[in-house]
């Protein structure tokens, strides 16, 4: 019994350690990179593209995979998740199956609508598991660009109605004459 005691405890500890390691091991590897063509100092209206690679590192297939992109504004005092409605038409992929060792490379294009500091992240979950895996985040700054120029809008907004008023006066004068 004295011989078997330490031996048994070693086996139990090894088994426990192995099960904890297996539980901690993620069955998915997720990478996110900016496209090489992305502008170095993006401005409102520019297009950015990000590439995600999802790899099944587990031993079983992942069915019903859903991956989606999220954008968070991190300007001080204005921290908020962004509604991607105007930013991107490609916000998620779904229903994909990934066998063990298989990878899925996806591009995420977006148009920069508003200036500020942002962080982008891709999240993935499968039909079977309850976990959500997230990619490393990418942070970028969007420079603000004045879109509507007051110097161009004001003369038109005031000038055209004035022109029509002038026409009305001229018309009235002619009718009286």
């Amino acid at each position, binding site marked *: 019994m004295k011989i078997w005691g330490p031996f048994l405890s070693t086996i139990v500890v090894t088994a426990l350690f192995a099960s904890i390691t297996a539980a901690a091991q993620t069955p998915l590897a997720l990478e996110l990179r900016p496209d090489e063509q992305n502008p170095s100092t993006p401005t409102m209206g520019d297009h950015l593209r990000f590439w995600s690679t999802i790899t099944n590192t587990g031993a079983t297939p992942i069915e019903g995979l859903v991956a989606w992109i999220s954008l968070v504004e991190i300007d001080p005092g204005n921290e908020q998740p962004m509604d991607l409605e105007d930013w991107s038409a490609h916000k998620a992929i779904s229903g994909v199956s990934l066998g063990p060792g298989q990878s899925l490379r996806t591009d995420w294009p977006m148009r920069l609508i508003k200036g500020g500091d942002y962080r982008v992240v891709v999240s993935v979950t499968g039909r079977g598991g309850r976990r959500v895996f997230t990619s490393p985040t990418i942070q970028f700054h969007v420079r603000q660009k004045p*879109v*509507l120029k007051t110097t*161009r*809008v004001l003369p038109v907004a005031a000038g*055209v109605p004035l022109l029509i008023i002038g026409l009305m006066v001229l018309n009235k004068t002619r009718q009286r004459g």
Partner: protein
Amino acid sequence: MKTHWTIVKKESAQMLRSQRGLLWLMAFSGLLSAFSLLLVSNTELSLLDNAQVVYMMAGTILVAGALLAAILGADAYAGEKERGTLVPLLCAPVGVNVLLTGKALGLLSAWGVMFVTATPYLWAVGASGQNLGAALFYLVLFGTPVVLGFGYLAMALSARTGTVLASLLGTVTVLMLAASPLLIGPGLRGTIIGHAMDAINPFAGALNTFDSVIIDSEPFTAQAGRLLLVAVWLGLCLLAARRSAAHPNFR
């Protein structure tokens, strides 16, 4: 041919020579001015993308054009009847189609005046952005059949009912239903029902084309289906107008 031009000249004069037409034009330019001023004075709206602003303005111009077509179309036959000029007009040696074409060309010239009035506004809000030329081109290509279609529909109802109010009410109801995509965003129309409604609604077809070419810079080939839709709309409305105009209600 001379009769044609006489009717066209008379109908066209309504827009630029009559106080009523100029008042409409004044209201239209006031609407676009208010819209532009709102865009530059509001800090959030002023950050909207140029293409987005041009798209919104193109939709506003289209709905104003269709509304004008509804008003002029409703007045075309019923207005003549109410003024007591329909019977003399029908007794004159003017063909049914000549009268209808003359009224339609008058309506087209009114739409042309509206387009010319709207062009500086589109330039003011969209010159520093993308696809301003495409916006103007597609506003003519898709806006004209949609506007003319509403004019023909109003003429059909005007000739059939013989009352301006009934024909105007009928056309404006159809216009309100057709223009609902202006209020319901693309996200809400992303369902099967939304797609089905877009597939039969010429107004939505024109709006989706504006979205496609102004914001997404898509080519002409992607618009072929929608162009067919607005052409079918114009054809159907023309047929309805011709049938009603052949036997107008003058009693």
